[in-house]
Structure formats: C-alpha cells, structure tokens
C-alpha cells in the first residue's frame, strides 16, 4: 500500500520526486531506488512536477500499467542483489477522476548493500537528504562485510545453486567455440516426458509455438540430417536437435539450451562501409524470444509432464555471446529507421571478448507462460545496454505496450 499523494511535500531522505519523463529513463529511477535501499528506504513518485524541491503539480502518465510492468522488470534486472517484490514494488496510483495515473516505487531494504548494474559495472549509491550520492569505498566495504554475515535468501537455495552450476557447465562447453548461448533452467523436481514432446509439433513447426515460419527461430535446418533424438550428456537426458553449431537441447527437467553461431545473427552489411560485421536486431530479438515461447508452451502443457505436474517457481535465464569482440550494433532497427537513416547512425563496436550476463535473470514461471516475449526482451536489453545504448534506442519491433515482438510476415 502506498502513502497518500505527496503534493506539497518536500523531497527528502525518504522521498524522491520525478517528472513524467522518468518513465523513459528507468536507469535514473533505478539509481534513485538503489540510493533509497542503501539508506532507510522510502518512495519514489513518478509523474509530479516540483518547485524548489516540493511536489506542486500532476503529470499523469499515459499507459501507466504497461509502464509499471516495464519499470518493475527493469528494476529487478538491474538491481543487485535481486530485489524481492517486498523490497522494490512499483504500483499505479490513480489521481483524481479524469487526471490519469502516477507511479510509485516503494523501496524497503532487506539487505545491507545494493548496487545498480550498468554496463558490467556497479553503482553504489545512498540517499542523503534530498539527493543521492555515491558511497565511499569504506561504506561499500562495510556493506560487504555485513552482507557476508547476513544470509542471502535470494541465492541460498540448494536447488538454485545446482541450476546455476548446470548453466556454467553447459556454458563452458560452448565458450571455446564462440557463438550465442541461451540457457533456461526451470526449478523443481518435475519431469518432462521427452517421448511425448518428440511426437508433438513443437520442435518441427515454428508456428506451433507462436513463432514465425520465416523468422529466426530455434528450429534447425533439415539438412542437419538429425531429427530430435533422445540423447544424454553431462547435464542429463535430453532431446537434441540440430548439428554442432546450431542446436537445441531440451532436458527432462525442462531445461532448454539453445546455441547458434554468431553468424546466425549477422545483419545485412552497410553498403557504404561494409565493416565491421554487425548484429541484426531482428535476429537478436527473435532467436531468444522463440526459445522463451517454446518453453512457455511446454510449461503450459501438463500433458507433456510426467504426472501432469508442471514446474513452478522460477526460471533462471542466462545468455552469452562468446567471442563477440569486434562485432557492431546499431540502435533501433533498419526497418524502423529506414535504410537511409539507419546506415547513417554510428555503429557501436563491442570491445570485450565475450558478453555474458553478470548473473542469470529470474523469471517466475507464470511470467514465462504469459509474457515469454517480455522475458526474451529483458535478456536482449542487457546486450544493448552493454553496447552502450540507452533504452530508447532498443528496436521498436518489441511493442512495449503489448509486450510482444511484432515482426512483419
């Protein structure tokens, strides 16, 4: 439950006030949230105008509910350690009839130290009075010491540690080869009926999982000469499709590992300046989202699970682009910008050797079921941020309001 509308209130150590524009800059909200979490907690109100630090007017937010979801996702993905809903909660607050809605971010610290993750770096901030400041080295050290003494419920479950270990194992195998690697790990003891899955159309027919037939999906080419075969590897029993370089494995615990060469993501070259090799926004969005859609379908079909029990809880998601160094990426998309403008935007080149999420993202099973595209988008958003793009420079083919990837055809 949020506090009353703070009109007339002064910004302070527990109250931050931001204008409507802040919804387009969730990084700024995340920094404020971390600053509050590292202090005494408090609220961030979005959609108010200020004068000399006091909230004086309303700036209602259009599409407040979709903005709420988007902001909540962003905060969960960009604050470390993972804030539980009880720690960071975004809610929509209706203002007087006809005047629209505002957003309120309620921050209640349960850990001794939080960080805002940005481009593989961490920002440690603390709210002091009416502004946020960077923590000193001593303050950060003290926070880490305290954190070491405090049990961290977010990563403490043995099951999650095992899940994370499985990811590292499948990643290590792929690391040396280079390429794209996506690992989705549902929790729980439930077992997928691999034989039943093999008989379904899900692995053959992109449209059966809501994907485009002409799209960049997990379905491999037929010339691989391999149908879905029951196999077994270090991670367990699985159905394996495709060849070495482009393959999908679905394990009996519901784990999905998809791998593809970086060349599967190559964009049509700039006709005027054909180097360096560039990533295509369509493929960046569509490959991971196709896999999330597949997992969503599997999770939603009790008939595919032994005893009809589907996993519950969380799905850990990790993705990597190995040997990405030297690859380029442009903002938005060629389709949205048009060829003329698109090729005139500067290409950003990835400088590090690999891209790997700092930590797996965590999606509630319900979310993978209901919003698979949004989950995939959250994964790829991290890559765009790592390239140095702002959120407004992400490809608009992911419709933020509908939370769907919409591509023609």
């Amino acid at each position, binding site marked *: 439950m949020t506090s009353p509308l703070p009109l007339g209130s002064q910004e302070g150590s527990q109250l931050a006030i931001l204008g409507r524009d802040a919804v387009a800059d969730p990084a700024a909200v995340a920094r404020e949230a971390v600053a509050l979490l590292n202090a005494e907690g408090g609220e961030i109100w979005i959609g108010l105008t200020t004068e000399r630090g006091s909230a004086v007017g309303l700036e209602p937010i259009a599409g407040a509910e979709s903005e709420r979801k988007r902001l909540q996702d962003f905060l969960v993905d960009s604050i470390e350690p993972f804030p539980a809903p009880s720690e960071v909660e975004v809610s929509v607050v209706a203002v007087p009839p006809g005047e629209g809605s505002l957003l309120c971010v309620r921050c209640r610290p349960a850990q001794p130290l939080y960080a805002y993750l940005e481009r593989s770096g961490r920002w440690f901030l603390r709210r002091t009075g009416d502004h946020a400041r960077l923590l000193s080295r001593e303050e950060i050290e003290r926070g880490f010491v305290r954190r070491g003494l405090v049990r961290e419920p977010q990563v403490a479950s043995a099951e999650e540690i095992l899940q994370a270990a499985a990811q590292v194992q499948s990643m290590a195998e792929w690391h040396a080869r280079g390429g794209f690697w996506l690992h989705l790990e549902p929790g729980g003891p439930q077992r997928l009926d691999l034989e039943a899955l093999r008989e379904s*159309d899900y*692995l*053959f*027919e*992109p*449209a059966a999982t809501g994907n*485009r*037939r*002409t*799209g*960049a*999906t997990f*379905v*491999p*080419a*037929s*010339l*691989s*000469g*391999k*149908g*879905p075969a029951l196999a077994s590897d270090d991670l367990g029993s699985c159905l394996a*499709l*495709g*060849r070495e*370089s*482009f393959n999908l494995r679905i394990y009996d615990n519901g784990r999905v590992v998809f791998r*593809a*060469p970086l*060349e*599967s993501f*190559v964009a*049509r070259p700039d006709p005027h300046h054909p180097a360096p090799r560039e990533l295509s926004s*369509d493929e960046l969005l569509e490959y991971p989202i196709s896999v999330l859609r597949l997992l969503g379908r599997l999770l939603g079909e009790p008939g595919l699970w032994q005893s009809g029990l589907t996993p519950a809880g969380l799905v850990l998601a990790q993705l990597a682009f190995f040997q990405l160094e030297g690859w380029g990426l442009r903002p938005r998309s*060629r*389709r949205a910008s048009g060829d003329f403008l698109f090729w005139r935007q500067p290409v950003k080149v990835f400088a590090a050797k690999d891209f790997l999420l700092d930590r797996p993202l965590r999606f509630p099973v319900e979310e993978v079921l209901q919003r698979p595209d949004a989950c995939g988008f959250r994964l790829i958003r991290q890559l765009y941020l790592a390239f140095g793009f702002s959120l407004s420079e992400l490809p608009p083919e992911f419709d933020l309001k509908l939370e769907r990837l919409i591509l*023609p*055809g």
Partner: protein
Amino acid sequence: MIEFSEFWCIAMDFFEILHDHNPWWRDPGLRRAGGYPLRRDLHGRLLSTLQREGRRAILLFGPRQVGKTILLLQLADDLLAAGWPPHNITYFDFSDDRITRRLTAREVVEARPTGVSADFPRIFLLDEIRSAGAWDRWLKQAVDQKVGRIVATDSAASLLRDDLRESGLGRWDEVGIEGLSLREFLSFHRLSEETAEDTLERQPNLVESYLALGGFPEHALSDDLPETHRRLRSDIVERSVERDLLRAGLDVQRVKDLFVYLIRDSGAEFNAEARSRDLEADPRSVRDWIRELIATRLVVSLERWSQQPAAKLRSRQRIFAADPGLIAAFGPSHVQEPRSRARLFEAAVFRQLRELISADGRLGFFRLDEDLEIDFVCEEAGQTTAIEVTSSVRVRGEKVERLRRAAGRLGATRSLLVHGGSVEEPGREGIEAIALSRFLLAPREILGDLR
C-alpha cells in the same frame, strides 16, 4: 514525309540511347551490373557459349522480374573483364521508354561504333526483342548472315510460336529462365566462403523466406513480407498481365481475374467450363486466355501422366503458379492454412522438376479413381519416380500408405514423400521421406540417382 530536322532529332535520340546503353564504348572501364555481383546458374553456360565459336543465337525467355536484363548486363561486364573489345559488345533494351518510334534490330546492329575489332565477333545483347519491329525475320537473316553472336530476351513465350520455332531450327537455341532456385536464393544471403548448405545451417528460416518471397531476385533480401507482396502484386498484375495482355488485345480485366484465380488455386485441375461460368465468358475465350497466361510463364501447366495418349488428351491439365512467391503474394496473408501451404510446396517442387527434366523425360501428375493420386511423376531413362508433396511437418502413416498404394498402381520404381518438416525423419514402407528444404537444395542429387 519526315523533315530532315525532325528525322535528325529522332536519329539523335536513338544514338544517344544506344550510347547510353553501352557506356563501355566511351570508357572501357565502365560497367553496368557492378551492383549485382551474384550470378544466376544459367550465367556461366551463356557466357561460355558466347565465348565459343558458333553462329547460333540464344533466345532467352522467362517471366518478368526474374533477372533477364541483369543477366544480359552481367554477360557484358564479364565479357569485358575477360578482354572482349568494348566496341564489339552492344546491349540494347527495346523497351526503353525514351524510344519514340518502333526501332528494328537491324538498326541497332548497323549502328556500328568506331573501334570495333575485326579480330573478334560482335556480340549483341538484345533485351525485350519483341518490341523491335519484325524481329523474327531479322533474327533469321542475321544468323544466316553471321552478323555476330546474339542473345535476345523477352518476357513472353510468344517467342515460342510454332512458326517461329520452325524458323529457329538450327538458327537459335531457346533457353528458359525461371525465378531463383533455393540454392540461388541462398547465394544472396551467403557470407564469404560459405556454401549453400552452410548458409541454411546458419539461417534455417531461409527456406520459409524463399517460399514466401519467391524467386524474384529484386526481393531476395527483403525483410518486409507484406510490402514485398504488395509490390509483387502490383508489378505482376500491372506490368505482366495488364500491359502484355492488353497488347494481345484481350479482355484484360477478366484475364486478370482468371490469373488471380489460377494463382490462388495453384495446382488445381483446370475446368474451362466452370471458370467460364464464374467469369461470364465463353469457354473458348477462357481457353484462349489460359494459353496467353501460360505464355507469360507466370503460370505453368502439368498434364496427367498416362501411357495412353488418348487418355492424356481427354484429361484436364493442372495449372500451377510458376513461383511460390506468387502464391504467397496473391494468397491469404501468412499462408498458414494447410491447403495454401501445400500449394506453395508443390509450386516450389514443380519449379525444380521443370529444370531437371530432360528433353526426353516426361513429367506429369498421376490419378487413378478419385482417391489415388501422386502429385508428380517423373520418367527418365526408363525409371519412373513418384513424388508426393505434403506440407505436413510430420510423416504421417496414412500419407505414406496412400503413396505406397498409388505408386504400386503406377508401377513406380522409386517413391519420394517430400514433407514440410524441417528436420529429417526416416522413411517407411519403401517410401523415402525427404524434407522440402533438402529436396529444394539438392534436387539433382536426389533425383539424379534415377538417370
């Protein structure tokens, strides 16, 4: 009577256009197809024919938009690169909108630029030859008089009229060109040093893109299907159907309606009486229209396979879209419905079979009673291959059984079930199951075993 000044202006127009078409006459380093690095499979064959001794001309015919003009310009570029004297190469497009009178091919040949080498034959690359006056008589004489080596193109198969064929015997070879094959389509998406198999391995969705976009080179790299389909509809209907058939003096609106019907029902047996009722036209007119549409090579016919010529004559032919992209463009959006997808698949397979079948081979469809059918029967060198096409992503038992029974009645020596799955599955009961993508990628290897 034409005034001198008026004549001079017209003549100037022609020479200006001719020089404009052949920039290598003024600067040997200039090329016209530099922006089109990819070569059709046919290109190498035509190039080596032009470079060999011989006097026969080549008539290259095919539907609009499949790259005939680009192919001619690429031939010019490659001849220049091979050291052919620039002034010995003449390209001319008779459909150039700047031409204000009916030119003849003779005028183009006689417009001899200064600098022609006597050590090499002249090469004439004549685009849209049908727009040239009395071109057939000229071509016959030109070949007999050995004016040079000639490649002439046109979009319509009026080039193949029976009387023309007789004149052409021994004088020219007819070479058909269709839309891109899957292998050619993949070459547009190829990264350096990559084989077609590598390309498809890296981007498996390109098979579906090929089916949806078709073999039209201009659209091979499109990533906007709805817009591509809109442009295809507009280009095909307005240019090919309306413009070409208007010239033939047909009832364009009803022919256009018939064309759309044929494309949307690609692969169906054609019933002139039923269509004449739909179009409120005389069945004889409808049969004429069908012949004209087939002449555009946008639709193709397939006869019923039978050992008895009389039975074949009595049977209705099946009419297919020449290219799967046409079905996708004129059909319902997304083409997700199974029957529409089956039409796409059949059109794509038929396109490959037409290319593979030799002059001595036979291609048809088989039907016995109402329930035993085979989409394609291919007879080569005494071997009969039954090819059934299904858009199903799985090899279903009942489909296998029906094909087995039909192939048995046909006496087929080999039976293939081309299916829509994108991963391989084992065949059953003597039926070889082949995924569509593998068939389209290597039809010669798959069917070559027969020969």
